[in-house]
């Protein structure tokens, strides 16, 4: 067993985790950066680009509207006001944002806004940003200790309940490492193994489950954002590529044949016989439509008998056309050339000539660890506060997809990376303020006691597996994914991905059965096998929270579509685990941190800013549709 000491522990491995680490180390702190993945591996998100921050007011309006007024305003305003300098900062960090011959930045228009504000590098902005941040950490030398391929097993808490470190475990050897630190930041992202398309996916929800078992509050876990993904078939259990944001930003259209039994290849179907979703052909300026709205419409069409099949491969899921063939080849080649040629190779179809096959797919969880923010007298976010990005456990911080901040009930295209990086900066500043407030009260004895308790609690799960079972852990993961998709997610025939209480009751029953099956799942004596079992248990816990949270949200809001129920004031659904292991929903979060008590209600208050008030019973997406005279002609009647 190894014992490490660092000022702050960061758990994660993607852009958020690297940014927090950078921000802490650049301010002189020592950081232990620990992640579940081996070095240099991350899921691809936010490939479309990053909002340039040129119009903070419009950016904030788009963000709040896209999130259906569920996002707290002060943090959104702060993020939008910092977006311009974030872009500048990324440029200085070496990100080669694309420019024209005159040196003027190229921009594309991403979902959820009427203006063209996203700067980008082809269709791999996030991969390049992540890679450069990863390399930049070398500048801090020994200040940053990196540990890949380790699972977070327990948080160490002192007598006052403050998080003073954690225990992590090598995912192959099982060797434990204790890390004592003043604060722990969770940055493990928002799309997790429950919904991941592949058994070998890196992302796990374990960190969220570990924090929840330690008493942290989770917010809005029922909010699952669908998007349109390029379909790539084979024996694979799910879609493989989310290129849609970039392509739609360049003017790609989503459409279905008007006649459900039209078996012609897409390119042979004349325009008049195409049912375009979203704004009229070529009129991308007409609507600030978000992808989740298009996904919803697609599911409604599928339920009504529409949709195309991949006839070559006889797939079981209905698909739609994602079409760039009407766009100038030179334009596309400059802006997404290498990705399009890869798609051409893998799909066997030339995207410049033929519509691609795409499908609605869940791309991220908008909820996560509940995090706080502090405001000044005029209602603006106070970054330099221990409350910034603080979870309900003192000393535990979260940012990026792992927390619930910024996106509300719907994430707009240009915000993926802005929210991750700004949130990471804010979490670093918040954790530093907390550390400054705590420093001086020496707690060495208390920390070592906390660590011993944490180690005692980090008992490796005993495998009770029998070889007679047919269902391996990867198989159970796949069943969980399918179950969640059918009940709270998306399937071709589930009528807009709608949720009702019968479905949720069925889901909870199905989850219980999966839990029982997991106890019987085959395992060998290896640590990897034990880790896989434990991570499945973590996924199950969060799936249960998702079901309970979905039941608690009695209205449709943003990405969450409920069959019954009216319209309420925006509020977060907050969940906590009781000592008995039951999931309990809260009306407010009360917590103590850095010697002060805090309380925040689940209701989203306007924080005194002069944004437009939530418009009564209207859904943000309805308001969005009202922007657009050409849209909505074929809106299905619910």
């Amino acid at each position, binding site marked *: 067993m190894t014992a490490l000491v660092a000022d702050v522990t960061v758990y994660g491995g993607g852009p958020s985790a690297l940014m927090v680490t950078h921000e802490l180390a650049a301010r002189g702190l020592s950081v232990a950066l620990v992640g579940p993945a081996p070095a240099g591996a991350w899921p691809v998100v936010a490939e479309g680009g990053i909002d340039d921050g040129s*119009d903070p007011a419009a950016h904030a309006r788009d963000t709040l509207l896209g999130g259906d007024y569920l996002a707290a305003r002060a943090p959104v305003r702060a993020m939008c006001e910092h977006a311009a300098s974030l872009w500048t900062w990324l440029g200085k960090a070496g990100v080669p944002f694309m420019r024209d011959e005159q040196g003027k930045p190229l921009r594309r228009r991403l979902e959820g806004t009427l203006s063209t504000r996203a700067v980008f590098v082809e269709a791999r902005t996030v991969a390049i940003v992540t890679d450069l941040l990863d390399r930049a950490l070398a*500048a801090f030398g020994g200040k940053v200790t990196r540990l890949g391929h380790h699972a977070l097993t327990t948080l160490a808490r002192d007598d006052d309940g403050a998080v003073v470190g954690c225990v992590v475990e090598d995912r192959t050897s099982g060797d434990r490492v204790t890390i004592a630190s003043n604060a722990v930041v969770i940055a493990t992202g928002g799309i997790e193994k429950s919904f991941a398309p592949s058994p070998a996916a890196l992302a796990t929800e374990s960190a969220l489950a570990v924090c929840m078992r330690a008493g942290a509050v989770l917010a809005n876990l029922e909010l699952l954002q669908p998007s349109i993904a390029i379909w790539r078939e084979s024996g694979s259990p799910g879609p493989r590529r989310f290129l849609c944001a970039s392509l739609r930003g360049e003017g790609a259209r989503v459409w279905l044949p008007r006649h459900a039994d039209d078996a012609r290849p897409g390119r042979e179907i004349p325009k008049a016989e195409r049912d375009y979703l979203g704004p009229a052909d070529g009129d991308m300026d007409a609507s600030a439509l978000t992808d989740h709205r298009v996904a919803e419409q697609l599911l409604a069409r599928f339920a009504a008998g529409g949709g195309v099949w991949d006839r070559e*491969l006889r797939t079981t899921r209905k698909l739609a056309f994602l079409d760039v063939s009407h766009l100038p080849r030179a334009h596309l080649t400059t802006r997404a050339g290498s990705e399009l040629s890869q798609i051409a190779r893998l799909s066997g179809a030339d995207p410049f000539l033929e519509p691609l096959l795409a499908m609605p797919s869940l791309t991220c969880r908008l909820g996560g660890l509940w995090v706080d923010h502090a405001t000044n007298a005029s209602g603006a976010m106070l970054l330099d506060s221990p409350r910034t990005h603080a979870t309900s456990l003192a000393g535990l911080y979260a940012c990026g997809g792992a927390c619930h901040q910024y996106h509300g009930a719907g994430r707009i295209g240009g915000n993926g990376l802005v929210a991750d990086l700004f949130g990471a900066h804010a979490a670093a500043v918040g954790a530093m303020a907390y550390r400054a407030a705590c420093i001086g009260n020496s707690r060495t004895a208390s920390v070592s006691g906390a660590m011993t308790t944490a180690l005692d609690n980090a008992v490796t799960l005993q495998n009770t597996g029998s070889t007679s079972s047919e269902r391996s852990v990867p198989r159970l993961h796949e069943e969980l994914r399918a179950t969640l998709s059918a009940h709270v997610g998306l399937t071709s025939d589930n009528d807009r991905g709608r949720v009702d209480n019968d479905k949720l009751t069925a889901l909870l029953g199905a989850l219980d059965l999966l839990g029982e099956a997991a106890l019987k799942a085959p395992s060998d004596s290896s640590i990897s096998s034990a880790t896989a079992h434990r991570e499945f248990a973590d996924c199950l816990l969060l799936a249960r929270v998702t079901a309970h949270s979905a039941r608690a949200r009695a209205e449709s809001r943003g990405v969450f579509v409920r069959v019954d129920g009216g319209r309420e004031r925006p509020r977060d659904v907050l969940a906590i685990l009781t000592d008995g292991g039951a999931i309990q929903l809260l009306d407010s979060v009360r917590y103590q941190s850095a010697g002060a008590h805090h309380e925040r209600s689940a209701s989203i208050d306007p924080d005194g800013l002069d944004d437009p008030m939530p418009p009564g019973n209207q859904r943000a997406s309805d308001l969005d549709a009202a922007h657009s005279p050409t849209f909505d002609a074929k809106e299905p009647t619910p």
Partner: protein
Amino acid sequence: MSQQARKLELDVHRQDGPDSAARWQRYKVEFTARTTVADALDALALSSTSAPVAYTDGCLASACGSCTMLVGGRPLPACTTLLAELAPTRGPLRLAPLRKFPVVRDLLTSRTRLRATSARLHAYLETPAFSAKDEPKVTSDSHSALAEASALEQASVLEQASVPEQASVPEQPRSAPAHGTGATLAERIALARCTGCGACIEVCPETRQHGGFLGAAAIAAQRLVELSPGANAARSTRLARLTEPGGIHDCGSSGACVEACPESVPLDTALANAHADASSAFWRTLFRR
């Protein structure tokens, strides 16, 4: 194109841990023209009741490089390599971990080496914390924020104008910042496509599991930094590191890396530039003597 499912035997390298003995395990898989190596491994994981073959797929879009393995002896990303392109006409197809990176388990290797080599060549920009002094004023007037942002950006674009190491060099024209437009920007973008998959290190005759040439990825990373704004700060350090043992002098110019790079990163240009920089540095020291 025929979508008839074909059958294939896979011989997969199994190894429980870094120090465990390795063995080959044979699997039978079905594949079509569009089945990737990752798809086949995932299908095996779902159908088998024994411990699944360990490998990682981070992004599934050949952007993170983490699933690179030897497919039939060639280092390729499992996520975007089609079985149909590689399936041998007879005998099984072998899947093995990269040889020049330590095995974690099965096909999973630790690639920390890539980060270490780029750190050794000082292939990074020292970026200050994202701090308040860079931030536009918090204001309700969006136009002033925009103006300030463009001013900041302009400043960063023009940083190239001063070259501290060669004070006598005249200022570059303000209108055409070299790293921000045209061919240089195109090269930066092409270099930034490097996913750190390790294929270049795997095929290089001069790299070893320990020591030897640092590899083309690090040279390309250094070249990317060289072309970036703010590159002047550590130029002499980078040049010094480039000419140390393991640096560019250990490159044998086999060209294997250029062939192997799945993202067509312009490694040839990067290596040629590194050779040129190193030799001009050599001549400079010679004449200074």
